[in-house]
């Protein structure tokens, strides 16, 4: 690792590695992250790079598997001599990369959701992450339910890592907000029909149903609920913060409420919001380049890279100092996802208020709270 560190200084470009799930199960998330990263690389270099030096991003696809992620991680560190690595999209791959980052003392900024990526802190000295943790989303939901005066909830979650982590946080934080989980169900990502689970939920005395998953499951659930005539509120996760959920579920999507980052609807963000500028310019650039919305995942890709760029611009140009910078000097940094304040025991650095609540009305996500 020592010799590598020397090599980095000599380079006339700043080399940054980025590993995202361009293909495989995580690709709907990984693609916006990948695109955002490419977009930014182009933009930074067109604007003259960092102190005259260009940024070179070595992009790699881990195909949503931890094995591939490990291979690429080794390549980034030893073959490409990057100063830091971004990624990966999924928690599984991020955890696998974490081990290598720690062994080789390379800063890693993940786009995975799971809290275990950055905790316990002793095992995560070199690892940071930018996405809202599920805990933030859960807090946001519970705050909302408290306002509405509901405290009996049903959970229906995907049995994959995302759903599972959601359930964990829902359970962990329920006590703090006086919530009672009356029923907890799960489904598999590919299941064609969730009526069985919904029937059980219908028979319970839950006042609201929290659905944790990514498309298309939650859309099927919305549709099935409507068919069954289930009439308790449907609260989703940030996993469906995209237009495609509404396209799929159609009318059944009306009234679905979710916690989300603000990138979902830049136009609805009040102009006095601190993030307004960052979000709208990134959103516009992304739209004009790719002709599709970046979704929240685009913002993870954005923040991951921009945090490193921030470090480089302030003179932290080797692995050690980048890590130091991230941990100590990122204070109130305004990103697309939220406002980051890292510290030695918080490598995520976000608060629940970086999320907002959105509701589907008239076939569109609209800002609710």
């Amino acid at each position: 690792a020592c010799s590598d560190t020397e090599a980095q200084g000599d380079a006339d470009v700043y080399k940054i590695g980025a590993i995202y799930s361009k293909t495989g199960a995580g690709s709907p998330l990984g693609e916006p992250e990948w695109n955002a990263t490419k977009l930014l690389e182009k933009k930074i270099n067109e604007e003259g790079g960092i102190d005259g030096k260009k940024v070179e991003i070595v992009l790699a696809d881990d195909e949503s598997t931890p094995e591939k992620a490990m291979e690429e991680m080794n390549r980034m560190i030893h073959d490409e001599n990057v100063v830091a690595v971004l990624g990966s999209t999924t928690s599984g791959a991020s955890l696998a990369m974490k081990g290598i980052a720690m062994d080789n003392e390379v800063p890693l900024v993940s786009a995975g959701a799971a809290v275990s990526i950055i905790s316990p802190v002793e095992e995560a000295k070199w690892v940071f992450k930018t996405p809202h943790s599920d805990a933030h989303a859960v807090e946001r939901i519970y705050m909302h339910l408290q306002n509405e005066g509901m405290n009996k909830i049903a959970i229906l979650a995907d049995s994959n890592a995302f759903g599972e982590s959601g359930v964990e946080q829902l359970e962990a934080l329920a006590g703090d907000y006086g919530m009672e989980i009356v029923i907890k169900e799960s489904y598999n990502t590919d299941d064609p029909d969730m009526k069985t689970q919904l029937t059980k939920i219908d028979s319970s005395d839950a006042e609201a149903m929290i659905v944790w998953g990514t498309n298309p499951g939650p859309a099927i659930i919305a549709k099935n609920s409507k068919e069954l005539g289930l009439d308790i509120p449907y609260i989703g996760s940030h996993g469906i913060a995209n237009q495609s959920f509404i396209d799929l579920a159609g009318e059944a999507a009306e009234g679905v409420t979710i916690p989300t980052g603000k990138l979902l609807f830049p136009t609805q963000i009040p102009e006095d919001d601190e993030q307004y500028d960052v979000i709208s310019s990134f959103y516009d650039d992304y739209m004009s380049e790719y002709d599709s919305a970046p979704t929240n995942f685009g913002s993870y890709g954005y923040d991951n890279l921009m945090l490193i760029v921030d470090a480089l611009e302030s003179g932290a140009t080797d692995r050690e100092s980048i890590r130091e910078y991230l941990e100590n000097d990122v204070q109130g940094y305004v990103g697309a996802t939220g406002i980051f304040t890292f510290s030695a025991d918080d490598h995520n650095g976000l608060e629940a208020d970086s999320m907002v609540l959105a509701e589907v009305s008239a076939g569109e996500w609209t800002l609710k709270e």
Partner: protein
Amino acid sequence: MKRKGIQQMSWKGIAAFTVLILILPFLLSTSLMITKATFAGIYTIVAVGLGLLMGFAGQISLGQAAFYGVGAYSTAILTATFGLSPWLSLLIAIAAPALIAYILGHTMARLHGYYLAMATLAFGIVIHVLLVEWKGFTKGASGFYGIPKIEFFGFTFTQGISYYYLVWAFALLVIVLSLNIIHSRIGRALRSIHDSEVASSSMGVDTGRYKMQVFIISAMFAGIAGWLFAHMSYSISPGSFGLDGSILFLTMVVLGGSTSVWGAVFGALLITAISSFVQALGSKISFITSDFEHVLYGLILMLVVIFLPQGLFPAIAAKLKPLLEYAGRKKKAGNITAVKGDQRA
């Protein structure tokens, strides 16, 4: 002594292969390739076991990744949660899959062909679901983490060349053991089961017992591979041990050729090579997107089956066999007919 008329183990082959393994890291200049070669070694271990099962016992398993997973998770849990030394947990990473195979083997003895394939597939899925759902032990779908490294008299094996050698040392051991088995009376008994089970049992071969033993051995090999994989990574997750994994191993064996131990070895290397090649192509040629890589991969799988239906290794072996020997054989076959004819005409 050189014996005529039986398959014999070629020490030359093993020696040559060992040399190749030893010098490979110096040829592979990048850490990426070394990591790939390390994985190839881990897969080789599983594939050799599966090859024994398929090519010699005539069984098929669509759930081999589950044994691999049981090996990986048992060592992960024992070392990270209960603080056992990795070397001790190696024994359990071998024994646990063996025990499961033993129980399962008894019940599966009556199944054949696709039915057996289904049973192993079902078993693989059940294990996968348990890895996800049994959160208390496995930490669920996002994965188990915090697995310690293997140490040997103060030396720590971390990803890179040291781990590469560790993995391949085990792989070579597994290859030699397997070669020994197939060149023994038991290997012959197994091959005979493949051709005619009824004749084989009339020769006194306890077919059920040998099938079971091979099933157990293949599970043990998978367990070893799981152990190596777990301690190579900081974390493991159920996704690595699902159906995709089982199919990957199956593909390796079929493409390499299941009727020889080397077939499985070459299969593991071939798949690694194909996927690296396709990926490299993707980074060179811009229209080969990462999606297109899958198209290409599927295409190559089909082409290999079409053009090398018996697998890669028999094809290579046939090429390598000196032409002289070939000609000799031809003459001999001719002689047989001639002898026959002479007796009669």
